[in-house]
Structure formats: structure tokens, C-alpha cells
């Protein structure tokens, strides 16, 4: 059965594809990191929507919390690294 939450799931998947365009196409490396940050936020939302869809929110929300912690490494640590390294050639 195609419920409204399936529709939300579909829209979020399409949004991830839109961000993927910026990650693949971005002129500088900072555009790519920005796109990946957006994708990780969308992945967290997608996991909570998936939990509501399966009526198992108490299981999926723990995984989403883990993704939120991984978001620190994905954006913050790589950003600080690139700031100190210097990326004129990227």
C-alpha cells in the first residue's frame, strides 16, 4: 500500500540525488563538503521517516543518532583539516 510516508521517502531520495549533482560537479572542494553535509542531514531525516514507516521508530532513531555523531567527523574535522592544509590546487 502506498501511504503518505512512502511519498515523503520518495521526495527525500530525490533531494539526495539533487545534492549529489553538487557533490560531483562542484568547482571547489568546499562545494563538495557542503553537499556531503546536506546529504548526511538528509540521511538522518530519511532514517526517522523509515522508522515511522515500519512502526519501529525506537530502533531507527538510535541509528539516526549515530549518524548525527558521524556528521561531526564528516563536516567539522575535514573542514578543519582543509583549513590547515591549504587547498589551492584542488
Amino acid at each position: 500500500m502506498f501511504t503518505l510516508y512512502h511519498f515523503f521517502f520518495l521526495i527525500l531520495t530525490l533531494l539526495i540525488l539533487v545534492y549529489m549533482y553538487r557533490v560531483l560537479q562542484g568547482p571547489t572542494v568546499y562545494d563538495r563538503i557542503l553537499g556531503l553535509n546536506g546529504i548526511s542531514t538528509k540521511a538522518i531525516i530519511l532514517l526517522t521517516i523509515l522508522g515511522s514507516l515500519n512502526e519501529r521508530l525506537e530502533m531507527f532513531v538510535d541509528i539516526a543518532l549515530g549518524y548525527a555523531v558521524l556528521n561531526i567527523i564528516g563536516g567539522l574535522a575535514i573542514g578543519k583539516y582543509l583549513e590547515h592544509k591549504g587547498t589551492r590546487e584542488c
Partner: protein
Amino acid sequence: MLAVDTLLICIGLFFLTVAAIGIVRLPDVFSRSHALGITDTLGTFFVLIGVAFYQGLTLSDVKVLLILLALWHLNPVISHVILRAALRNGVRPWVKEKK
């Protein structure tokens, strides 16, 4: 309860769609981050509050609010760090060309 969470998630998805349009259409990394950092945070707020309304009041709602708290602190900080790295490494902001 069903109408409330559907309405909140629809509002949130509208903001997320606006952020996605902005990140494709805008000209440089600073304006793209302007579209992403503000609109994405607000859309995440609406969608997660809507998901928390879905099953009534359980322990999962507390964890959803915890995710929301983490994202609200992390998203602006990550945008700031990326843009500061871009500015210090010589990316200039986009300006309109003078004729």
C-alpha cells in the same frame, strides 16, 4: 494526531526543497552555504517535530529531540568552518561584473 504530523512534515519538505534548489542554482560557495545552512536547519526542525508527533508521547520522542539538538548545534558550526577554510585559502566571493 495524523493531520498534525503530516502538516508539519509537508512544511519541512517545502523548506528542504528550497534548500536543494538554492544549492544547485546559486553561483558560488558562500551563497550556496547561505541557502543550505539556514533553510536546511529549519526544514530539519519541522520534519523531526512531525515525526515525533507520529506515535504519541514515547521515549523515542526524547531521542528525536536529542538528534534535533545535535543538528541545530552542528549545522551552523560546520557551515562556518567550511566557509572560513574557503576564505583563508583564497576563494573570493562572487560579485556582479562591472560594465
